[in-house]
């Protein structure tokens, strides 16, 4: 094996490819996170709702998505789903970055399914008397949730949500299968162009690790700053 030479990556087009990949990975994470959070809250509230029908929908969403690999989600949204769209819309989508769009849909749904379970168990950890007291004071179900239960549940919910964000960050790598030009894709591209697998993959590994460490650090900071209150 040729000697290890990281300087190869610090100049010219290889550097640009890798940095573009890193940026796209971060963007995918940010967009999917912003979209997944409200969806996860909605699904969690459905699963906690007193209406049986809503609970069933929430449960099917969570189980249906969690039990299928993310790779299959990506393949489905990229190859399968467009078949259902009208021709004109499909053409418009193909002009844009349809790979990235499919990846965002898959990542958002996958992350939301996991996050909704964390939110649900956080809410369930708050004693039901809190909800009942809210209802007894005349708040509706949603208002008692929003004003009384959820603010208390936040401390329990945030740490697992941060670790789901870490999973989301790692999961963006799977978008490489449908040809999204994220970090893993670019690292493989550099490897193919330069035959320098060690250097290209070192860059990708160090990038993934650094962002993972930052996310872990945020989790530690949050738990230090807002420790769980024990009654």
């Amino acid at each position: 094996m040729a000697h290890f030479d990281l300087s190869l990556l610090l100049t010219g087009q290889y550097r640009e490819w890798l940095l573009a990949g890193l940026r796209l990975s971060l963007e995918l994470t940010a967009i999917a996170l912003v979209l997944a959070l409200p969806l996860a809250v909605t699904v969690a509230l459905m699963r906690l709702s007193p209406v049986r029908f809503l609970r069933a929908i929430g449960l099917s969403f969570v189980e249906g998505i969690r039990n299928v690999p993310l790779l299959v989600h990506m393949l489905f949204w990229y190859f399968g789903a467009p078949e259902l769209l009208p021709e004109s819309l499909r053409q418009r989508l193909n002009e844009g970055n349809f790979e990235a769009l499919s990846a965002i849909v898959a990542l958002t749904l996958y992350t939301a399914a996991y996050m909704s379970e964390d939110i649900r168990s956080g809410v369930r950890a708050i004693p039901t008397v809190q909800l009942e007291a809210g209802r007894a004071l005349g708040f509706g179900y949603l208002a008692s949730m929003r004003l009384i239960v959820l603010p208390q549940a936040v401390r329990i919910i945030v740490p697992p949500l941060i670790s789901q964000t870490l999973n989301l960050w790692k999961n963006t790598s799977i978008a490489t299968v449908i040809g999204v030009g994220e970090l893993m894709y670019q690292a493989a591209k550099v490897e193919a162009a330069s035959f320098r697998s060690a250097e290209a993959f070192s860059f990708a590994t160090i990038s993934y690790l650094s962002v993972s460490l930052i996310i872990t650090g945020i989790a530690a900071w949050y738990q230090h700053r807002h420790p769980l209150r024990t009654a």
Partner: protein
Amino acid sequence: MKELIEKYWLYFLVGQYPHGPLGGLTLTLLLAAAGLLLALPLGVLLGIARLSAYRWLRWPVTALVMTVRGTPLLMVVFWAYFFLPSVTGVKTNQFSTMLIALVLFDGAYLAEIVRAGILGVPRGQAEAARSLGLGASGALRFVVLPQALRSMLPSLVNQFASSIKETSLGYIIGLQEVSFIASQINNLELTKPMPIYLMLAGTYFLLCFGLSRLAFWLDRSLSVARLSRAAAVRTA
């Protein structure tokens, strides 16, 4: 849909076997099972090392576990696929590559499950074993680990479901597991991506959902058994 199943069910289940390499759903299950079986001893060793009293052992293992947990599985697969052959000089096939990546990756995750399992055994158990004259390793082997491993059983079943999902990444390095086979079928048919990928998703769903139900049931029956044992001790 019916026509697709009639035409491709055998290909979907075993790949080109017996006229070619084994593939399809059988390969997926085989890989997940082999990966978990080999990762388990590694996970136990790493988990124990994470709790070791010796710093020279605890720190590097902690660093290894943290590194693996901070990188995507796909990264580990790429390292094993592109880099390992250039170091060892042995060209491994896709199955062994994927197996190595899975064992390393799941080993690091299992290490944390094992560690939590050991920490979950009340301290009094280890102390009682020590005061009865067992050494540190004897106490671990005969008293703490058996209890820790039993409480881990539901997590292990869940881990098997995760392993099944993880094997789908073999697709990327051209391993003929079930996702790859489904894509091949899609390439042959060209016009029916929707039913093909839905069927693939349904297959994973049945397996993983079934396993997670099993884990739930095991968890409940184990804790019922524990409670009734505790009650028996109290009344005795």
